[in-house]
């Protein structure tokens, strides 16, 4: 099914013809995609195109109307979200969703599962969080909250990390900082990534493959390089978004 990826690569996430929606409405139509172990995929498209809806379906917070989702060879279409997390799907939701009455450290401790990513390693990645380990979730800046949301997903030790607009609402300097960390994580690890990002330039630079969604349909997919070069498609389906200013 996959039109990219080498044939030898082991598939991690396989989505076959899923329809997802809220209530009566269907938002994502008949979508299929494959991500191999350690692979990376950018989801592009305008607001309301169905990017976040697709992520919610992968994380298990929305049940697909049809189609199947497999993870590591196992059918997870109807699996509840907490079990998907334990299987290795980590999610950094849009808007961060940090727990306000818990401290930074407690936010991490709730999520921590045995594995390569420990609290110490997260503190190493984001020294700011170590400084603020005793602060409550609502006593953090937007950038710190985003770091915490990423760190909290990392300590669940995922094989697949879902990032939903991780740079949204961050000051440019902070956004660059967070972007650099995301790049570090994804390039040095065998962790696969699905990234939603309004900054198409950043997303295409980070992920090897990309899909453009429009009204719930995959209108274009392929290697990031090819899509980045296709300015017409980007302009038509994603809207003119200048790439994130050169770091």
């Amino acid at each position, binding site marked *: 099914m996959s039109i990219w990826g080498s044939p030898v690569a082991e598939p991690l996430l396989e989505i076959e013809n899923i329809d997802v929606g809220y209530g009566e409405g269907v938002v994502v139509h008949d979508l299929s995609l494959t991500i191999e172990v350690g692979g990376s995929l950018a989801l592009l498209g305008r607001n309301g195109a169905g990017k976040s809806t697709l992520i919610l379906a992968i994380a298990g917070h929305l049940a697909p109307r049809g189609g199947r989702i497999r993870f590591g060879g196992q059918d997870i279409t109807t699996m509840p979200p*907490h079990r998907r*997390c334990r299987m290795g799907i980590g999610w950094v*939701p849009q808007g961060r969703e940090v727990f306000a009455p818990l*401290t930074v450290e*407690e936010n991490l401790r*709730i999520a921590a599962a045995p594995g390569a990513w420990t609290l110490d390693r997260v503190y190493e990645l984001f020294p700011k969080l170590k400084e603020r380990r005793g602060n409550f979730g609502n006593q953090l800046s937007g950038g710190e909250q985003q770091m915490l949301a990423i760190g909290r997903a990392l300590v669940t030790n995922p094989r697949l990390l879902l990032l939903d607009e991780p740079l949204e609402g961050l000051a440019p300097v902070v956004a660059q900082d967070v972007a650099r960390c995301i790049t570090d994580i994804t390039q040095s690890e065998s962790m696969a990534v699905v990234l939603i990002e309004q900054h198409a330039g950043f997303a295409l630079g980070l992920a090897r493959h990309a899909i453009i969604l429009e009204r719930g349909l995959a209108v274009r997919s392929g290697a990031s390089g090819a899509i980045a070069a296709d300015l017409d498609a980007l302009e038509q389906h994603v809207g003119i978004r200048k790439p994130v200013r050169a770091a």
Partner: protein
Amino acid sequence: MSDITLDLARIMVVNRARWTTIEVAFWIAAAAGYFLFPAKLVLLTQMLIGGLFAMSLDLLLGYGGIASFGHAAFFGLGAYAAGLLAAHGWGEPLSGVLFGGLAAGGLGLAFSSVIAKVRGAAVLMVTLCIGLLLFEAASRMPWLTGGDTGLQGIDMWPLLGLFEFDLFGRTAFWYAYAVAFLLYLAARRYIHSPEGLALKGIRENHDRVPMLGVSTARRKMIAFTISATIAGMAGALLAQTTQIVALETLSFERSVAALIMLTVGGLGTLIGGFIGAATFIWARDVLSALNPVYWMFWLGLILIALMLTARGGLVGALTLLTNYLARERHPR
């Protein structure tokens, strides 16, 4: 006002898992009460037992956001279980408390899957119904529970084989103190474990806890069972120290009293339940001596005033006070 909130937050940041002044002060004051008010030992013992019961509710309501309107079901079941055990020939106190806790915990576990499924007002209704069911059952089985006259013939053996339960309630006081303190330590551990933190996460944002690999249903079931067990142990303590179990231990009034104690003391603080219970029971003692019929009127008035002025309960107010004093002594 925002300064106050910030101060409160700052204190809690620094002293998260460490003991706060209020916690230490309470347990010292409770022990000192034995020497200061030797004529009031029965009342002091009731404060500790009431506090333990309120704390068990705090685990649910203050931490998990799960409101129980029928928590007396577990308190009363623990009381009857321990009472029946002693009335039928096994008066050993510690195993009796465990037995009371097990009985209540078993009932809690049985209902916990229902609690985990429902949310909001439905939780109130389910817990209310558990309370009503048990109360009715107990009053319809006088052959077992003694009905309206209460369960009598509870004969306690000496504590640890050494200390007789005396008429002045000295043994009873230290026994209740020790059990309450140990359970307080256990609850504290639970609250600061990832298990307890997840409970707070559930209160804050129910739908976002599963994304961390945590099952909300499971956490709620565990919390409900633990809370029911502790409530049952508190009930068992009451049965053993008063050597009678009345239907009132299962009543709606007792459930409500625990809610009041908790709100007065301060939700989500653990020690708030104990401070609230001490205040409530002391106020009841004083007010009912002034006017035995209408004491609830004055209590209601005081409660409304408290709700308007001190939203964090007494613990919130005391925290501000200790913080203020600390700053006076060490000006920045």
